[in-house]
């Protein structure tokens, strides 16, 4: 394996594109280093993108925030602006791994690793986050939900990588929340998870809802049927129950060492309902 740390986007693209063997991008490294150690990944070239100018930046953009691909969970969590606007995304990112892993792990890496249990991904999908991708064919923006294809596979072409992720602007009375279930209180991979983003009108009626579920399908599920149960309601018990049922119905999990099918289908409803209540409270607190 060779290691390169280019100091420009163009140099990084050139390295990635011209590598005849397997190349991988290194950001926080919390997934790729484990894969290297266990032999699950054996790239010929590892391209460290952290020397690229701006890759650590968090900038305001059209009322939202653009988060550089190398921004660690710990750094993002310290950003008061993003935290106020997208508390659910922040809490999801902060759940990736331990404090130590937080010092390195990135949203972009979490997305590209394409695990259905990735903590930040349901929250980002609920937030309609947009990834900014560079590559040999130029730059493009891509909704985050289009990036993971199946466990461990993403849609980026050879030579492409993410330089930043945009968390868009929000109207008033809008907020989000993320909950996951793990057997312990820390250090586990989500057995099931739910990210909920809501917009309320001035009377507290839900006008927009996005509900994304993790670890219940090969990729994160955005469940429109669940969202529809909330729109037009004040998230009363009936609406929440219907939403929970829609989540359970949409879930198509596997049973494995981390949880049974039955458990995942049950608990995803519980978490989605709890997350929706939290998002509602947060949105209401803004008015």
């Amino acid at each position, binding site marked *: 394996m060779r290691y390169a740390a280019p100091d420009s986007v163009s140099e990084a693209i050139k390295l990635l594109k011209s590598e005849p063997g397997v190349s991988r991008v290194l950001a926080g490294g919390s997934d790729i280093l484990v894969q290297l150690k*266990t032999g699950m990944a054996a790239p010929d070239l590892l391209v460290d993108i952290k020397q690229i100018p701006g890759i650590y930046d968090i900038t305001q953009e059209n009322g939202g925030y653009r988060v550089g691909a190398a921004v660690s969970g710990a750094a993002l969590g310290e950003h008061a602006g993003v935290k106020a606007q997208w508390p659910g995304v922040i809490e999801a990112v902060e759940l990736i791994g331990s404090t130590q892993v937080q010092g390195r792990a990135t949203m972009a890496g979490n997305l590209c690793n394409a695990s259905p249990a990735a903590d930040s991904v349901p929250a980002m999908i609920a937030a309609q986050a947009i990834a900014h991708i560079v590559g040999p064919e130029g730059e493009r923006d891509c909704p985050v939900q289009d990036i993971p294809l199946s466990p461990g596979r993403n849609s980026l072409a050879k030579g492409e990588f993410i330089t930043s992720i945009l968390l868009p602007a929000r109207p008033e009375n809008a907020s989000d929340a993320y909950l996951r*279930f793990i*057997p*312990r*209180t*820390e*250090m*586990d*991979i989500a*057995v099931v998870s739910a990210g909920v983003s809501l917009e309320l009108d001035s009377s507290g009626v839900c006008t927009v809802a996005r509900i994304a579920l993790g670890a219940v399908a090969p990729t994160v599920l955005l469940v429109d049927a669940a969202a529809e149960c909330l729109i037009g309601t004040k998230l009363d018990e009936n609406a929440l129950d219907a939403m929970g049922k829609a989540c359970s119905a949409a879930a198509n999990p596997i049973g494995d*060492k*981390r*949880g*049974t099918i*039955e*458990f995942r289908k*049950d*608990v995803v409803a*519980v*978490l989605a309902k*709890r997350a929706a209540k939290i998002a509602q409270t947060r949105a209401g607190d803004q008015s």
Partner: protein
Amino acid sequence: MLPLKCGGRKMALYTGKRNFKVVGTRPPRPDGIDKVTGRALFGADLSAPGMLVGQILRSPHAHARIKSIDTSAAEALSGVKSVVTSADFDKASNSPNQDALDNCMARGKALYHGHAVAAVAATTAYVATQALKLIKVDYNVLPHVIEVEDAMMANAPIVQGGRRADNAPDGLSENITHYMSFGHGGLDEGFAKADKIIERTFKTAATHQGYIEPHACLATMGPDGKADLWCCTQGHYYVRELCADFLGMETSQLRVTASEIGGGFGGKTTVFIEPVALALSRKAGKPVKMVMNREEVFKASGPTVSSLTDVKIGMTKDGRITAAHAMLRYQGGAFPCGTIEFGLMSAFAAYDLDAVQAEGFNVMTNRPRQAAYRAPGAPVAIYPVEGVIDELCQILDLDPLEVRLKNAARKGTKSSYGPTFDDIGLVATLEAAQKHPHYLTPLGPNQGRGVSCGFWFNFGGNTSVSLNLNADGTVGIVEGNPDIGGSRASISQMAAEELGIPYEKIRTVIADTNSLGFNDVTDGSRVTFAVGLATIKAAQDAVQKMCSRVAKLWDIDEDAVVWEDGYAKPAGPNAGEFEPMSIAEIAAIANSTGGPIAGHHEVNADGAGVSFGVHLVDLEIDPGTGQTTILRYTVFQDAGKAVHPDYVEGQMQGGAVQGIGWALNEEYIYGPDGLLQNPGFLDYRIPVASDLPPIEAVILEIPNPGHPYGVRGVGETSIVPPLAALSNGVSRAIGHRMYELPMSPPKILKTIKG
């Protein structure tokens, strides 16, 4: 302290209350600074010039015949200096040793996923890893068996032939290596007296000790057959015995030095990589370092038994147990495993019973060879018993502590495993729990309180200690048991107490195998008891020598000199008028009064004294997810005299948390292919700091009559009660009984939903 008579004393056993000066205080540990600064040297921290890196090739199958191993391509790789297989080891001298060897390196058959098959030593880790890929092993994959109940069936795949117990019942598998029973009294009459009888079946998963330090060693063997081995182990003398046996060496030619040890809990009481490193070093003629990775630790070292147990207990309406029976089935991996004995003997040890029987089997499966884990066999035997008692308390509407007190073993009780108990602390711990504010605190919704008793035998065993008096009056103690939780501090304290000098004047070190007589493994909670006892006697030996020198100096009878608070003094007015001599004064002139002064003691210590504990837990269940939150936890344990209370508390807290992990989340998970699915800390979920509340430790000091200071072992009992305490707490919180460990959230949620 009591003045010691110096002439011809016999070891006094515990003689009642005394005012300790050093024992019972909390001085800093001698290895403390090294451990908070990163200087302490653990197993993987030593290197040697020209050192090679050793790595092991492991079986990808649960059970397979090894038809051939072709190592030629690996040997041809540049940088590879030696390759070994089972052919490079001698036949062991006895059956248990042969099992240990065959576990280190598969002979003929790979018996479990991860079983070592071959090993290489190379100039770098990278080359070693490449070399492993070049070893060609031709396997004939065989049917495998993982669960104890399957392995008992007559048609089960045979893990190893020829190991069947003589007395195993007909119609069951050859995998049964032990059938045993213990107990007394008439069960039929006993059950006839009961108002309520219930019988339940309980299952536990195999768990791992989970020490944070992987197995590691550095071996050097020369062409003259002399060898040195540095390794993290609980017993370097046993490592020496096994390695010398496997390599055909004389014991004197192998010196084993124990590194600082990063946790063991029983799992470092045997060998895994050490003989392999020596064999690689012998072949390569260079030092070889081997360090397991975490996956290897889970796959190839450690796990406990898993179990399937039926318990039947009869109780009167007022809570008296009239009869009790248990049928235990343990699997301890691919080799015969005697842990069932401890399970059977401990299952009902907490109770005074007229009619009791515990019978059980050990069965082989295609899993790693069981290694001891803190009170081996006892947690999974006592868990079902305490579960049935708790369920009876609920059915009969009785207070669970009251019922346990009513049936508690006490002095004079004929124990369920035979002997009659001397002074024991169970009643005291139960009464302390009853009075503790914890037991009286009201519970909220979805909350439950669990109670359980626990028990462990405690060991004594073979021990050697030397105590060297230095010219400045300070003392060096040489002992031979790796310090796994602060024992150097407690040994120094006991020596200080006995000599009557300050703790700071003493330094205790752990000797290598050539520098001190034999010592048993650090196991069975034996060190503070047995090494402490030998240290006290070594101190008395030194005191006697000092008194003798002083008697000569004063020209009086040896019997006329007594030792008090670090001074030799005349025994009384009749002995004459002499200025007391301090240890420093005696030491300063030792060379002129007969030469260096040292005390020694070698003993096979008995009289360890059993230990009981009671745990209380309050917990809350999330009815939506089945998650358990522990709200409050209190440990009550009879510790005998607590030499260093900080480390006694530490043992109680640490054991409790290991038991909590066992109860809630820890387990070996196998797929239908017999492969271990969770060989890592990510999915083998040991408790983390945020999972836990403070663990309150209440020490009860019921002196052990078998030790001069009343010391009992304290290290193991604490892992026993959490299994049932949590199970009982969860069962009460959700209103349904749980019968299986771990109580992972999917299982709890399923039980809640019926």
